Structure formats: C-alpha cells, structure tokens
C-alpha cells in the first residue's frame, strides 16, 4: 500500500448535514476533495465537538469551516484567526457536544499555546431538518471553498505554514 504523505495541514468541516445550512462546513470539505495537496488532510468532523480535540493538540495547523450566526446576509462568510480572536469566544454551549470554542480553549490549556487554527464561518439561512443547502448558502460555500483552496495553495507555494495576506470576504 502506498505510504501516506505526512500531514502538514488539516481542513476540518464541522456541522450537521441533516440541518440544511448547518452542514455547510462538511459540504465545503467534500468540495475540496481532489483540490488540495496530499499533505493536506480533509476531515469530515460532523458534530463530534470535543471528540475532535486531538486534531488541535498535535501541532499541525488547521483550517476549520463551520456555520455561525454572525448577523450577516445568508451565505456571507468571514475568515477568523483563532489566535487573535479567541478572547471573543462565548461561554460554553452544549454539554456533550462541546463547542469549537471550548475545544480550542482546551487545546490551548493542554499545549500551553493557542492552536494554529484559521476558521472560516458562513452565515446560514435555513437550519430546519433537511439535507439540502439554501440557495444563498450553497453559493456562499462555493466562494468559501475556493478561498480555502486558494489559501492552501498560497501556504504551500510560499513554503510557509501561513499566508502573508488573506482574502477576507468573497
């Protein structure tokens, strides 16, 4: 069997694909298949919450894609660097499926440094039960996915784990 390339970057999509736009992160990761180098691990994190902690404690930089209520137009998205914005994380949410903020805070506590995580968040429109994305979010996911692919390409083109500049919004 062919040996796997060492993982140099993870792209983690989180959310519930059965709650329409809530699953935007997982959809984005699926759309990235075949569009990133072999050293980039694509992870369908689903609603595992705290079970994903291991991904953020081994020193491998991560890009997380998630849906979040930001007060923006549906389908709009933002790029957030966890290291600079972690102080804004809210109080803990669900007790058993820990929020991403809880998971990243715990990772920081355990490793002694904030994890190198960049978060792409997209504004949902429809969170009812269902497997399809709203039209606005489906369109937004396309742009967001392209931005993540661009960032991945930029990181490795520069030979660095971090890009020098970022596209902030489509």
């Amino acid at each position: 069997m062919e040996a796997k390339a060492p993982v140099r970057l993870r792209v983690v999509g989180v959310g519930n694909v059965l709650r329409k736009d809530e699953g935007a992160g997982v959809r984005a990761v699926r759309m990235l298949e075949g569009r990133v180098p072999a050293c980039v691990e694509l992870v369908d994190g689903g609603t595992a919450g705290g079970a994903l902690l291991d991904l953020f404690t081994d020193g491998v930089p991560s890009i997380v894609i998630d849906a979040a209520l930001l007060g923006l137009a549906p389908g709009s998205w933002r790029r957030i660097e966890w290291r600079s914005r972690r102080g804004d994380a809210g109080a803990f949410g669900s007790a058993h499926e820990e929020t991403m903020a809880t998971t990243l805070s715990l990772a920081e506590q355990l490793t002694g440094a904030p994890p190198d995580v960049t978060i792409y968040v997209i504004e949902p429109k429809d969170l009812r039960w269902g497997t399809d994305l709203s039209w606005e979010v489906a369109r937004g996911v396309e742009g967001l996915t392209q931005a993540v692919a661009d960032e991945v390409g930029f990181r490795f083109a520069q030979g660095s784990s971090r890009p020098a500049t970022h596209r902030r919004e489509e």
Partner: protein
Amino acid sequence: MSTFALPDTGYITRVEGHGRVRLSVADGKIEELFLEIPESPRFFEAMLIGRSIYDAREITSRICGICSVGHTLCSLQATEMALGVNVSRQTLKLRKLLLHGETLQSHVLHLYFLAAPDFLGVGSVIPLAATHRPVVERALRMKKLANDLCDLVGGRAVHPITCVPGGFTRIPKRDELTAMRDRLAAAIDNAKATVELFAALPIPSFERDTEYVALVSPDEYAFYEGEIGSSDDAPVPKWRYRGVANEKVVAHSTAKHARNKRGSYMVGALARWNLNGKLATPFARGAARALGIEDGSRNPFAISLAQAVECALVVEDAIRLIDELTADGLVDEKPRVMLRAGTGVGAVEVPRGVLFHEYTCDAAGAITSANCVIPTNQNLANVEADLREYAPTVLDRPPDQVKAALEVLVRAYDPCISCSTHLLDLRRR
C-alpha cells in the same frame, strides 16, 4: 454550529438541542418542575421516508456525533432484518469491537469532561486541565485510543463509513488489530486509574426506586445482541420495543416521554450494570466493587460510576474480541444484499442506553416508514421523577446552589440535549 462573537453581533450559542429544567418554588414547596426539550431528533424520521434503506445507516449516523457508531449499527440491524440478511460471526465481532470504541470514547468524555468537574466543584474541564493536568492527560490518552479504535474498524473516528448492510467494505489487517490490542492492554492501567479517581470523588447520596431497562443476554454483558430486559418484567424480543417504550406526548417537550411498567424507567450504563453486572468480566466486577455498585445501585448519580466500570469492561472485552478475531483468521468477506419488501427492528446499547430503529421498505428498498427511539427520550420522565424527589432535599440551599445541584443530577444522565450553562430556570416566590 459554533459559538463565536464578532464585534457588532454579540454571542450566539449552538443550535444543537438544548434542555432546560423549569423549577418554580413557592413557600419552600415545588409548584412546577419540568425538564423542557425544545426539539428532538424525531424530525429526522421523516427524512428517511422515500430514501433507500441501504443508505439509512449513513443518514442516521448523523443524528449524533457522539453516538454515530451506535446509530449506524442499530440502523444496520434494522436494515438487515428487513432485508433478511444474516451477518457472519466475524462481522458481529467487529461490530461489537467498534461499539466498544464508541462506548469508551463517550464515557471518557462524560466522566472526565463533565462529571469530574462537577464532583470536583470546578466549572468545566478547562480549569481542571490547569489544576489536575495528569488526570486530563489520562482522559485524552483514553479518548485517543477510543478514537483510533473507531477509526481502525469504522474507517473514521466519527460517522463510520466501512459498515454496510451485510458486513464491512474494509476490515482491519491482522497487524493493525495486534497493535491495537497492545494499546488496549496498556490502557488497563488507565481504566484502573479512572476507577480509583471516581472511587475517591464525593458522589451525592440519593436513592429512588425505579425500573431499569437494557438489552440482556444469557451469554454476555449485552451491548449489541440481546432481548429487551427490565428489572420489573421478563425479557421481550427487540421487535416488541414499542410495548416497552410506550411513548407519550407531553406538553412541555417536543421529545416524547417513555414508560413501561411504572411511570418512568432508566436506560444507560447504570441500567445495563443493574441488569447485566453478573455477566461482567472479572476486572469490571472488581471495578464495581471498588466503586460500591457491585450488586447494583438505585442512585442516579452512580450512572457515572457505572460508566467508569464499563470503561474497564469494554477495554478488557475489546482485547478478548481482538484475540478471537486474530485466532479465527480474518476473512475479507464481500457483503451481498438483495432488496425486498420488509420491516426490521434494530436494538443496540449506545453509551446513554438502548436505542431502537425500525424501518419498513418496499420491494425496491425505498423506506415507507421509520421510527427511532433514542435513549435520552426514554430517560426524560425518569430524570423528572428524580428531580421531583431530589429537589426538596436541596431547597434549603441558596438558589445558585440549588441550580448547581439539580444540574449535576441532570448531567449525571449524560443527556444528549444538555446545556451546561443555561440548564436551570429557577423561580422562587
């Protein structure tokens, strides 16, 4: 969905379900006490209608990130019963091994991330990581082991992809299983340390007599195979689950309440232990002895203790299963399934209790009806009954301590819908 705040939007919380205890007290007496659930996965069943029964396990694995293996396996049982498929002993053992991985994964999360902070009096696992670092590191080692076990057998740490009707699309290699066996053997000490930790923690002393329901088997401590057992009744086959989980709609919750022989019953680790403990491994029985529940318990706070016992049990039993699989020789079976019209029921012990799936499909395999009964729903009436009896014993405390005490009781059940910070709505007049 995550919790984030942008400068001009304020904080938001997860959309995943939330539970809330509504307690109203007047003159020291309880006027109103409900566990409110604003939404539940039952909406989910409608999404299965018209879909291929072959795909049901993939859809249902998304009901819950923590119990995704259990939903997958329960779905497969129902699918295979509907299609008349019998699986091999190898498949059964691999599925039991996979389920042990999820049980360990979930119990470690609950014990160390939720129960331990409660019993140690700290707000969450984050301060615990500062004050009890070796304890948290042990939890993470156990969780990593459980994740890797699920990944090895299920193809992913969550939302498994290798399990299909009739068997597996990929089975672990012998050397992978052997390496996992070594890690499990090394984890025995971590399981012992978990038992020692919880034996030393102050568990509230409260008992209430109730009915316990879990899968039972004459051959083993049942997780994947068995009849539906009850502390109050003779076992019944799994296809009679509706007669056990008599669900009823209640006004304060979109989640239905369940009742069998009494007004409520308990499912989960303590129910399993109370009904199956005599068939547990010697290591697990020793753990139960150390935790004071060897002969069972009626204290709902002991659910955490039973989870600690089950951590020991599943580690030991996973080693046994790997030994049997490697001794038998692994065969790369090719699952073949023919579609037909039928009805099937699945019953699997997931971390929080017995889970039921039932599907009916037509000759083309399209699902025409579906029903899922999840453990948290089955426990809701029992949690409320416990709260009604427990609350009067703590009402002399300041409101914040009443709130904290009742939240600890709800969290002891490890409910899927719990919300650690906004659980209790306490009104005192």
